[in-house]
């Protein structure tokens, strides 16, 4: 795998689009949360110097808040990166050339999936560092609170990121054209939210929570104004569902892997 990755590195290291999209991905995570912090500090009403939204950027809630802020809206940029790097191969027909030159189809699809994993790890590390820095520098760590409590949200973020990026990869692999694949990714992102809204509000069913993207979104509940908006019952309900969400997300992930490998290994390139 290391040898394959070294070749992938040769493909991207002088590719400007790769560096721009990667930089945007990395900057967007702290940037977006910082924007929300400044909005909260300057534009939102306060009583006794405290925001009615609570202190979402102080530990322990900072883990949840920054993970929540960084997904899924911010996934659009890295998803474009995944789609670009994959559809480039189809556009240039280099996926054929790589196989002709001596990669197996298995190797080609494996190294691409490994890149999706690496990108998910990079984003997760940025979320982790952003939380540590914002949690300790912009806020005083409250007495008696360990900065690590609540850090499981970063793991949930990772599951969410790898799921979304693998969906982007799958769409690139199936559709092969950059513009259409991006439209499909965005269309599905929005489309699923509409379905979720309809089933919850009109049909009063939570079945839509188990849709491919929503199930990972459900791992990280909305953190703002938690004390006001969320009942203890809802929290325990969510807590109860975490293992189910994780298992369903894993099943989807395995499905994406199986489909993408089978597709690339059996079709005409």
């Amino acid at each position, binding site marked *: 795998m290391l040898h394959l990755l070294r070749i992938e590195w040769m493909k991207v290291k002088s590719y400007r*689009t790769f560096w721009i999209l990667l930089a945007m991905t990395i900057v967007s995570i702290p940037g977006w949360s910082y924007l929300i912090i400044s909005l909260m500090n300057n534009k939102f009403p306060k009583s006794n110097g405290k925001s009615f939204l609570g202190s979402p950027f102080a530990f322990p809630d900072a883990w949840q808040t920054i993970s929540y802020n960084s997904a899924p809206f911010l996934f659009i940029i890295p998803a474009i990166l995944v789609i670009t790097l994959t559809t480039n191969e189809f556009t240039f027909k280099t996926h054929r*050339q790589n*196989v002709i*030159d*001596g990669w197996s189809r298995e190797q080609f699809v494996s190294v691409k999936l490994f890149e999706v994993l690496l990108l998910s790890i990079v984003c997760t590390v940025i979320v982790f560092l952003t939380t540590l820095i914002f949690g300790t520098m912009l806020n005083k760590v409250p007495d008696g609170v360990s900065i690590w409590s609540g850090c499981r949200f970063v793991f949930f973020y990772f599951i969410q990121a790898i799921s979304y990026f693998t969906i982007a990869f799958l769409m690139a692999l199936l559709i092969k054209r950059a513009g259409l694949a991006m439209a499909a990714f965005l269309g599905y992102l929005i489309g699923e939210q509409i379905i979720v809204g309809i089933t919850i509000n009109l049909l009063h069913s939570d079945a839509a929570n188990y849709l491919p993207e929503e199930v990972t979104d459900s791992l990280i509940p909305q953190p703002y104004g938690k004390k006001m908006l969320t009942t203890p019952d809802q929290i325990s309900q969510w807590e109860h569902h975490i293992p189910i969400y994780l298992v369903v997300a894993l099943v989807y992930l395995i499905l994406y892997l199986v489909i993408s490998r089978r597709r690339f290994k059996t079709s005409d390139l």
Partner: protein
Amino acid sequence: MNILSITSITKFYGRIRALNNVSFEVPPASVFGILGPNGSGKTTMLGIVMDVLKASGGSYSWFGEPASEKQRQRIGTLLETPNFYHYLSGEKNLRIAAAIKGRGAGDIPRVLEMVKLTERKDSKFSTYSLGMKQRLAIASCLLGDPSVLVLDEPTNGLDPVGIAETRELIRELARGGKTIILASHLLDEVEKVCTHVAILRRGELLMAGDVNVVLTNEDYIEVGAGAENSAALQQLLAGLPGARQVRAQEDHVQIFFENGPMDPGEVNRICFEKGITLNHLQLRKRSLESKFMELTDERAAKK
């Protein structure tokens, strides 16, 4: 041991049959031409043996072994179009190809020099002309000096000088003992460089073998003695001194000779002595072009 053995390969694109039960063998150190008009299945055939297309039926083996990616690393292949990363320079593209083939970058200057791209090696691929792209693809094939080359329309997009240089390069490689599989719709390209040839038409293999047998360019004699004598006539003609091939047509028999046709009068005399009276005797000249047209003619296919 044959370099490539193809056994009963069939390929469907939806309901279109692109290849039908094609079998042939590529012997070592041959320059093997795959000849056929556009759309006859040449690129499909090569795509299958390079594993970028999946055959609907049949099998193939390289070097007498079942196909694997390790074998492809030992083969220099140019399939259909030059496929490179547009945003990378020619040299960086070759580095990727060399790395995939499991070779170092040390051979890159040599192959760039061979195709005269050294000066432009640092220019982006997207700035190359069609001919330069094709030459870079040829350079990529030559990386690591492979013993087998697969070239699909290698002179595509090249100017006359480039075409001549490429042919000379192919001859030079062949003289060095390499096996070259060359697909082309250009008859004279195949005629000038190939030792063996397979002819495809609409996915059917018409014939395969030694180029001198398949693409006879010499004069031949055509005789006829009526349908009732046809079998006896063929037997007799096959025994003529120097006769290489006897081919029965609808009401004539054609005789091809090893070293030029024998005197028609002599043929007549021998036949007469054996009690066969000819009603048709003609010395014929046939160009390769007409042979190829005949082989690949659509109307002929329907006969």
